[in-house]
């Protein structure tokens, strides 16, 4: 797992999640970012995820499933995992899988969430790598990859985790290309 000083892990914890409170808490309304002074029972507040652990595990509030993992997204992912723009669900550079894992830790039914994340990741992975290796073959100027618009749309829809894998695959392919193309000049 990420180490303590991982900037990505810290940033991923800034995602906000809706929580419906079960108790009144005076003078803490500012946590939701609004103008309310107090938190009152059945108020819904958007809290950063690092705070959600505490309030849910202490049974002060129930978490509301974020739309990024709601039934609409689930159905779309079931139909065709590659057609969903994950980046659109968590914002550009957002970490859909890391966010999902965090939610999973809070849920009672972890397996279902794990299956959703795992299946989505695995089904999209081959295409992520395929595109990274082909995108590279076109050179830095190759703006449109194979498959044209749909491929480009898929690339734009990658979440931060997938984007990193894309970059890793691309870097590896580039390094290989460089090595194959080097001439024997300079070889001792």
């Amino acid at each position: 797992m990420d180490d303590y000083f991982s900037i990505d892990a810290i940033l991923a914890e800034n995602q906000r999640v809706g929580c419906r409170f079960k108790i009144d808490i005076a003078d803490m309304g500012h946590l939701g970012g609004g103008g309310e002074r107090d938190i009152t029972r059945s108020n819904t507040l958007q809290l950063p995820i690092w705070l959600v652990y505490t309030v849910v595990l202490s049974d002060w509030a129930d978490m509301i499933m974020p739309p990024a993992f709601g039934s609409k997204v689930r159905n779309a992912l079931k139909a065709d995992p590659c057609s969903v723009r994950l980046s659109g669900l968590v914002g550009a550079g957002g970490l859909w899988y890391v966010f999902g894992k965090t939610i999973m830790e809070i849920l009672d039914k972890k397996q279902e969430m794990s299956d959703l994340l795992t299946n989505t990741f695995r089904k999209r992975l081959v295409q992520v790598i395929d595109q990274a290796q082909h995108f590279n073959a076109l050179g830095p100027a190759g703006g449109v990859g194979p498959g044209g618009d749909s491929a480009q749309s898929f690339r734009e829809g990658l979440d931060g985790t997938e984007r990193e894998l894309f970059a890793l695959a691309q870097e590896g392919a580039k390094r290989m290309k460089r090595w194959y193309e080097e001439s024997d000049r300079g070889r001792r």
Partner: protein
Amino acid sequence: MSLPHTLRASVTPPELELIACQQLVDIVPLIAMEKTAFISGAYGPLRPPHKARIPLWMAVTLKQKKKCHILAPEWLTVEYLQLKLTQETTQAEFTKLPFRFAELSRVMLDVASDDLQNPDKLRSLLQDLREARQAKARAGLENLEHSALGLSNLSAMEINEIRPFFIEAMAILGRLQPGA
């Protein structure tokens, strides 16, 4: 920094080449040399026109001084690679090739193409093999689990190319398990 960033997650192709160049190849020497103790072992004697077996790095050095001919290993021939390409495209698993065939063939094609028969055809066959195998490796990602994946007959250079994202993808699958 004790280790440059690019070297932390993987090994570079030139490093793999350095390792591969320790492998022995047959040469026909054009100079004589007594049997000599090197750090990696004793090589020689070289007595033209008798064949000798020396490490590839030594053969490359001599070749560049025009002091030897490098003899192609039996797998670096058009017939053999043609056969391998047919196997590669008709069977599901990776066909067996020398573990460091990519490095060895590239070095030999680089410095000793005049010692090889039909080097252009060899290059294009190697390229076709590479693409067929790359597609297979990618397809292997579909079977990726968080625990183990068998990849027998994959070569050193191929492993190195897929390593960073295979390892990372596996780590992510591990994290997505409940309670991980």
